[in-house]
């Protein structure tokens, strides 16, 4: 997942009503075939399992609801950009006449396949892309995403770091759309609050050690350090704290906020904080438990909720359109998300489908937050949680941004 990041529409205000298409009341009898291209192999493979679990859980919920729409999911590998697996997978999926493809995780991979998917009239729905390039992409309105905007998370993180009384900030940033985008908005927010970013060291995907970046940032002696990375934080954090930097002055982001109890020496990051989009687990009930039922081996839940919502939204749009054509689904996606401004709030597929069956407009909000699409297919809202590490290197939610 990655993002030079779109400036989401300043539109708390819903779009003018009336552009919503009517919903036909009545029973449905649809079979929806959806493919995924999520990373099973390659450098981003660690992101794959929770995303696939999210999709699988959604499929299970939809099929259990048994409301006249059955989904069938075909899982394929997106690999990473080095292997060019994604095009092969997409060819395979398209040959099976899927209506929509969920993926990819990485913006680079999504770019590789978007033309191929869109040309086939199939919806591409990424749970994790944040690159600004997709906002105005010539996609026949078929590209959608549930990934939270970097602007939101960056602002929350920047404010959080400032609020904690840090005057100076250092950042270690993954050089890709995700890292540089999030870093940019974090910096903006932090500097607007009166702080100064005194060091920003970038590294590339595939870099093996981070000594140079760590010494560059610690040499500037910042009050706090934000780690805007994926899994690399697991390497950077102990090296950083090992080099003498306090372990409670670090800030994590969604790409790397995970349970480090098994990896780090106790107390290594106790007191450090992080941000993670999504609703409070407390309000979600047993979402994560149910994910674990789907895939007991899951270690973290990055983008699981976004993936879940992606499939539910596709299913709801298909239900609303009473069609499994990709273009039909696309034409309803915005309004079932509440993007056209009206509709009954629902937070499960079952509730949504029931409302649709009665001919009502709906506004779906799922475990990833209050999903609402703008006319480009980008989400406009998100809830960003704020978390803090405990002595055992697990984290708990301490508020919302």
């Amino acid at each position, binding site marked *: 997942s990655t993002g030079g990041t779109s400036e989401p529409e300043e539109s708390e205000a819903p779009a003018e009503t009336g552009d919503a298409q009517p919903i036909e009341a009545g029973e449905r009898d649809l079979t929806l075939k959806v493919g995924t291209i999520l*990373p099973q192999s390659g450098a981003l493979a660690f992101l794959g399992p929770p995303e696939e679990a999210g999709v699988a859980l959604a499929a299970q919920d939809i099929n259990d609801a048994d409301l006249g729409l059955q989904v069938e999911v075909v899982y394929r590998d997106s690999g990473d950009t080095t292997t060019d697996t994604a095009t092969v997978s997409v060819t395979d999926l398209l040959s099976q006449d899927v209506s929509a493809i969920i993926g990819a995780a990485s913006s680079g991979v999504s770019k590789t396949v978007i033309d191929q998917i869109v040309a086939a009239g199939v919806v591409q729905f990424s749970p994790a892309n944040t690159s600004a390039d997709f906002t105005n992409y010539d996609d026949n309105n078929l590209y959608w995403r549930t990934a939270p905007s970097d602007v939101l998370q960056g602002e929350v993180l920047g404010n959080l770091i400032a*609020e904690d009384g840090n005057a100076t900030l250092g950042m270690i940033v993954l050089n890709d759309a995700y890292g540089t985008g999030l870093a940019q908005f974090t910096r903006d927010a932090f500097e607007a*609050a009166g702080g100064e970013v005194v060091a920003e060291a970038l590294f590339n995907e595939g870099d093996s050690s981070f000594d140079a970046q760590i010494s560059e940032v610690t040499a500037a002696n910042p009050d706090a350090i934000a780690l805007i990375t994926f899994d690399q934080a697991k*390497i950077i954090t102990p090296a950083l704290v*090992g080099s*003498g930097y306090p372990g409670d002055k670090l800030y994590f982001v969604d790409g790397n906020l995970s349970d480090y109890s098994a*990896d780090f020496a106790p107390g290594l990051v106790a007191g450090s904080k992080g941000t993670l989009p999504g609703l409070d687990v407390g309000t979600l009930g047993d979402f994560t438990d149910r994910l674990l039922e789907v895939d007991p081996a899951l270690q973290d839940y990055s983008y699981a909720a976004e993936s879940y919502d992606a499939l539910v939204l596709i299913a709801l749009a298909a239900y609303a359109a009473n069609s499994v054509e990709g273009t039909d689904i696309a034409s309803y996606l915005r309004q079932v998300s509440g993007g056209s401004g009206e509709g009954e709030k629902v937070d499960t597929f079952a509730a949504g489908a029931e409302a649709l069956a009665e001919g009502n407009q709906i506004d779906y909000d799922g475990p990833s937050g209050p999903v609402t699409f703008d006319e480009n297919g980008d989400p406009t809202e998100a809830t960003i949680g704020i978390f803090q590490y405990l002595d055992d290197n697990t984290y708990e939610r301490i*508020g919302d941004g």
Partner: protein
Amino acid sequence: MADEGGTDDPAAEEEYEYFFTGNVQFEGEALEGVLITVEGNGFDADTETDADGRWTIGVPEKAEYEVTLDQDTLPEGVVVLEGQDTVTAEFGLTKRKAVNFFLGEGQRVTVNYFDQVVQRVVSGLNFGLLLALAAIGLSLIFGTTGLSNFAHAELITFGALMVLTFGVNLAWPLWLAIIVALVLSAALGWTLDAALWKPLRRRGVGLIQLMIVSIGLSLALRYTYQFFYGGSTSQLPGATLPSDIRFGAVALSWVDLVSMGVSIVVLLAVAFFLLRTRIGKATRAVSDNAPLASASGIDVDRVIRIVWVLGALLAGLAGILWAYFRPGVSWDMGFQILLLVFAAVTLGGLGTAFGALVGSLIVGLFVEVSTLWLPSDMKYVGALVILIVVLLFRPQGILGRRERIG
């Protein structure tokens, strides 16, 4: 100091949805009891900073406000620069907005340039020694069989993964896990040679073809690791314990010291092996001319077997140290430094053991030191450019020798 970041003043919370919040500090110290006023859109409110120097004010709508710090409430001797006591602030997309007042000179003690250079040089040497350990195995195998073994990366990863398996997953004592990992690394080298390379040599497969086999092997092994260990990084026991052994500006951990020590001792031992022992000389003879070596009574297959075992053992050891040095174990950790290892071996002169050492140190130093000038996401560029430049002047590598013509 675990602040309750994000939790709000309960009183304000009931009243309004949007908040300004911030800190007032002087020279890094929190100031208590400073009066802060928020004004705008016909709204106005004030509050005082708490013991941590923090304040929060709720406002009714998302708009532009002026936040003012009341200079009169500042302690004796603290002043705000002209015009910096009022800040115009506007909400972004979220409901909270931080406005901080950091007063005073705010002198940050940064690390001076010289100390930075020293730090980088030390970590460069450390990294270089580690590379050397990995490189020397590669160089040995190249030197003896002429094979550029791209699967060497996976031999490096293997050592670390085995310690992970036995030391973490099976929770054996660390020393035992390391010994088992080294034994298994050596066994892997033995097996690879016995099952793959020896039969291929028998059939007289060319060196480039063998190199491609090694690329295939690398791919297969790497993804096998991913198959069993997943795509994420893990830590070995004790790898994340912070420690601070300090020599002036340089912070070293016990891991660094041990790894440097082990590297030096092992490298010396390998050099002795190559230059002084009969088998060591035989490895060079085999690399020069295997049929002739055989005609001299050397059991070529046995020598190559020994080299594979030794090379794999050194790679495994390098992997374990690398897992502590980085720190972290992952399925592609070896592959990530493969190019640097190759660069080191080439820079020093292919097939020369000392060359591998010299090349590794140069590469290690350049990777770490060059980022003082280069952007850090280009840190490998320095080392690779130096490789190209050196070969421009010494096409046979630093310690390599030119062959005579005719």
